[in-house]
């Protein structure tokens, strides 16, 4: 027992150290790089907490796509003027430090004061699992017990895309987001852009398919597909899509719209909003997951590309 606890302890200490460096690094670029490695370490911690679904999501979205986004921003924004005030100094800094330590101690005492026999919904979730036809309880919670949260979450992604697009300037509207790749990308990047994406699509679809019984699901699969799409654009093989494209808009809202449609159909077919007809719920869930995966991949890709920047360039 002590050996595995020793591993957990060292993993936790390492994760906290890397997070500390991400917060305290001198330059912002170093802080972003440290944040990405922190995200990967955190995925390991999630595996140790026997939450493999969450580990996949943390590695894919938490450190993968977020990391790509932050590195792009760090490169564009840079460190800022050397003489500019970097951070709060003196008394304010000390006061904030004390406040944050007090917050941490408060949360720690709250956590330690929790009842010995932890209240849990696991028995209830396991008991109703057969009726959803799914093997993976997390997917059952996401798409059946608490389906409204997942529906609203996929709608939140669409809100974010609309929000990001409205930050463009008026003359750039209708144009294409700036391509992550340079105009004449290097040879090795193009090679990677041709080799890896087919494998990425295979892994993404597999992730969604096994999500019903094993760890995986629409969000993890969608992220891998989005990563493949971003790589293709970074390798200069494809130009980013124009935001006025009807197909792009339909693909972006297709997943949430289908989910909403099935939910409303639930009134008639299964006597409740977002309920699935008896015995067919697995089929409905898989159809929804497939559509969601495609829309999530498009949404994550568009969010990583950012606001449209170039109007009408060939």
């Amino acid at each position, binding site marked *: 027992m002590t050996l595995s606890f020793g591993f957990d302890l060292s993993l936790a200490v390492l994760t906290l150290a890397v997070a500390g460096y991400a917060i305290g690094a001198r330059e912002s670029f170093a802080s972003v790089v440290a944040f990405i490695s922190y995200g990967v370490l955190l995925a390991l911690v999630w595996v140790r907490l026997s939450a493999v679904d969450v580990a996949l999501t943390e590695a894919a979205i938490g450190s993968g796509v977020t990391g790509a986004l932050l590195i792009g921003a760090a490169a564009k924004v840079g460190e800022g003027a050397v003489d500019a005030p970097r951070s709060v100094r003196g008394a304010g800094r000390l006061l904030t430090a004390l406040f944050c330590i007090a917050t941490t101690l408060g949360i720690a005492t709250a956590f330690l004061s929790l009842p010995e026999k932890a209240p849990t919904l696991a028995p209830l979730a396991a008991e109703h699992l057969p009726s959803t036809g799914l093997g993976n309880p997390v997917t059952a919670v996401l798409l059946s017990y608490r389906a409204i949260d997942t529906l609203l979450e996929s709608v939140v992604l669409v809100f974010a895309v609309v929000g990001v697009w409205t930050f463009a300037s008026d003359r750039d509207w209708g144009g294409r987001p700036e391509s992550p790749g340079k105009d004449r990308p290097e040879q*090795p990047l193009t090679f*990677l852009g041709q080799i890896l994406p087919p494998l990425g699509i295979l892994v993404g679809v597999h992730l969604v398919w096994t999500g019903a019984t094993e760890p995986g699901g629409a969000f993890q699969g969608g992220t891998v597909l989005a990563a493949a799409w971003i790589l293709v654009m970074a390798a200069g093989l494809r130009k980013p899509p124009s935001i006025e494209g009807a197909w792009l808009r339909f693909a972006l809202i297709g997943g949430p719209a289908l989910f909403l449609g099935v939910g409303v159909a639930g009134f008639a077919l299964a006597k409740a909003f977002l309920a699935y007809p008896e015995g067919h719920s697995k089929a409905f869930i898989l159809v929804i997951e497939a559509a969601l995966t495609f829309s999530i991949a498009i949404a994550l890709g568009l969010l990583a590309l950012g606001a449209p920047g170039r109007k009408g360039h060939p």
Partner: protein
Amino acid sequence: MTLAIDAFTILCVCGGLFFFLTGAIALLRFPDTLTRLHALTKADSLGLGLIVLGLLPQCDGFLAAAKLILIWAIAQLGGATLSQLIARIAAIENSKP
């Protein structure tokens, strides 16, 4: 028999860790980007290769072993491309006066 397999695993994994350790030290000690890059790619390919080799007998079934080798292959692909790109940028930086 299992003893021999476990010994083999421990040996390989330790070898892999050794390469990772040397790679990390080299990263801190070497003066410029190109030499650091050289050290890192060694650590990455050899270190990871040995660890994967060591874990192969421990996997239950052929599919798990194939997945491990796939992971190693993707790591090589990524590592090779990245080091090429970084080396290009380093070369351009060095060539500037």
